[in-house]
């Protein structure tokens, strides 16, 4: 987690505050469809590749309508890729059953499932990032609360988010101080680390105390009032209905293969 990440998270926050048709959709509608999307993508058998391709449409449409810069999302997907890559790369070595040949290349089942894993990774991560970029954490939190997530947890999420930048800024300042005094060493020595993180913790605790005092001064009674969005509009219902219908259709039929059949049929 480098300092560059903080700029990135600020960028996501900016994107979440834009006003486009995708942003105006109810947070609950987007959350439900995105969750259904991830579950359905992961419910395919492990060698599915072509059947998964139509699913790319969902994150792409959300990103395009929400005017999210695609390069930004792609970069985030690439940065997060190592875990799936490290686990998935074993498939080609474990499963060496040949399933097809492409010219001189023999394709094994392991490679097919590896491609499937990496494609699913792009799909699921892309959908989650698109959801946040088109909603923002505040609206998402309010939506989650309306969906029945415990209030304390939603509050915790919003508070954490609220102070993320403040505490991180403190951390960055302290690191700058250390760097100025320690001639270019990147990682800290043991004793320095303990007291530096300890200091950061103490400052965070002090800040929490001040925040609490300020909240009491403004009449805080232990409850957080989350701004509620107006009720579901017909566009939200349309989004949920259309989204689920598309997901169900793409799960039931291999749309890409049918498309391919039409194409190869036309080629005749």
């Amino acid at each position, binding site marked *: *987690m480098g300092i560059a990440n903080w700029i*990135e998270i600020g960028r996501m926050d900016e994107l979440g505050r834009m006003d486009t048709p995708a942003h105006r959709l109810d947070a609950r509608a987007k959350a439900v469809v995105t*969750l259904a999307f991830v*579950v359905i993508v*992961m*419910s395919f*058998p*492990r*060698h599915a*590749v*072509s059947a998964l391709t139509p699913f790319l*449409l969902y994150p*792409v*449409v959300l990103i*395009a309508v929400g*005017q999210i810069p695609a390069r930004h999302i792609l970069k985030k997907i690439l940065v997060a890729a190592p875990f*799936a890559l490290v686990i998935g790369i*074993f498939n080609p070595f*474990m499963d060496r*059953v*040949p*399933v*097809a*040949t492409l010219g001189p290349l*023999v394709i094994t089942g392991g490679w097919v499932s590896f491609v499937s894993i*990496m494609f699913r*990774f792009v799909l*699921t991560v892309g959908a*989650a990032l698109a959801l*946040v970029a088109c909603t923002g*954490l505040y609206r998402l939190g309010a939506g989650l609360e309306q969906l029945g997530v*415990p209030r304390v947890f939603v509050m915790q*999420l919003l*508070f*954490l988010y609220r*102070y*993320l930048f403040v*505490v*991180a800024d403190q*951390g960055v300042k302290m690191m700058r101080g250390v760097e100025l005094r320690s001639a270019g060493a990147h990682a800290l020595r*043991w004793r320095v*680390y*303990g007291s530096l993180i*300890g200091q*950061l913790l103490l400052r*965070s*605790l002090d*800040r*929490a105390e001040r*925040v609490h005092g300020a909240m009491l001064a403004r009449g805080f009674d*232990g409850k957080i009032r989350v701004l509620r969005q107006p009720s579901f509009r017909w566009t939200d219902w349309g989004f949920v209905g259309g989204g689920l219908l598309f997901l169900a259709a793409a799960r039931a039929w291999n*749309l*890409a*293969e049918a*498309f*391919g*059949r039409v194409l*190869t049929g036309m*080629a*005749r």
Partner: protein
Amino acid sequence: MHMADALISPAVGGALWAVSGGLLAGCARKVQQTLRDDLVPLMGVLGAFIFAAQMINFSIPGTGSSGHLGGGLLLTVLLGPYAAFLVIASVLTVQAFFFADGGLLALGCNIFNLGFFPAFVAYPLIYRVIARDQFGTSRAWVAALVAAIAGLQLGALCVVLETKASGISELPFRAFVLMMLPIHLVIGVVEGLATAAVVAFVARARSEALPTAPAAGASVSLRPMLIGLALAAVVMGGVVSWFASTHPDGLEWSIAKVTGHQEVTAPGAPLHRKLAAVQERTAMLPGYGFQAGKAAPAAPADARPASWPTVSAGTSVSGIVGGLMTLALAGLIGFVLKARSMQRVSGNG
């Protein structure tokens, strides 16, 4: 150790969502019952602190590498298990949403692996027992070290079990365990030392910031331990038995699963035969060497071609052509939509 969505089946992801959701609801109720309203800002700021602490690295003595704090155990020492579990869950949620660390479906697994074990196993069963409410003593250092290692080992083991139960990775159980546990032993040592160092510093600099001896009558009670153990046993038992019953043998399972689709996509279907004939004549993809009705000709006879209908012969051409074209189409649709909405914005402004 954040698991990704791409390696988890809906059954495993859903089960762990249910477990973590239940724990979350229970912890939320517990925290609300404490009636400490300063807990709300404290939890929020400490969650932010964990993020900030994770960007500061220290060098691991004797090696060239560096590490950083994970924070699960430290939060539990500072806040107690219930509030700490909520904070860890919120940190993981923000990481999943903003950094693509983990994912939506995997969130339940990640909260369980990285939150349950430090908060409800390592802290009450190991840390409290060894440290006996001391801070900064050698006892406390040992306690943090052992508790962090145990928590991370259990979490890593769970990652392996969840991945195996999902059946998407082909990695054998043994090899996976041998890969994960040693790595997390090292991470556990680092985590334990970092936790102990921070706690020792706070004990020296401002001891009142640490939770002092527990309130009367609440000295290391057996109840949370037993509940924690029982929960862990139930979950482990559930995951393992589910895995054992549905995957008697990885290969048999995959064959049975795939052959279930054979009726639909078998290469012998008339449409496919016709299609393959079309393909042979038009040769749209000349390098693609196979014949309808047979699996890949290069495959040796004993390669069990029948178990691979979803990717074999007849369906492959339309699958590949259709897949590529669908991807292109999806990209095109996105491009057009974006161009249109940009136009509308500039038209408005």
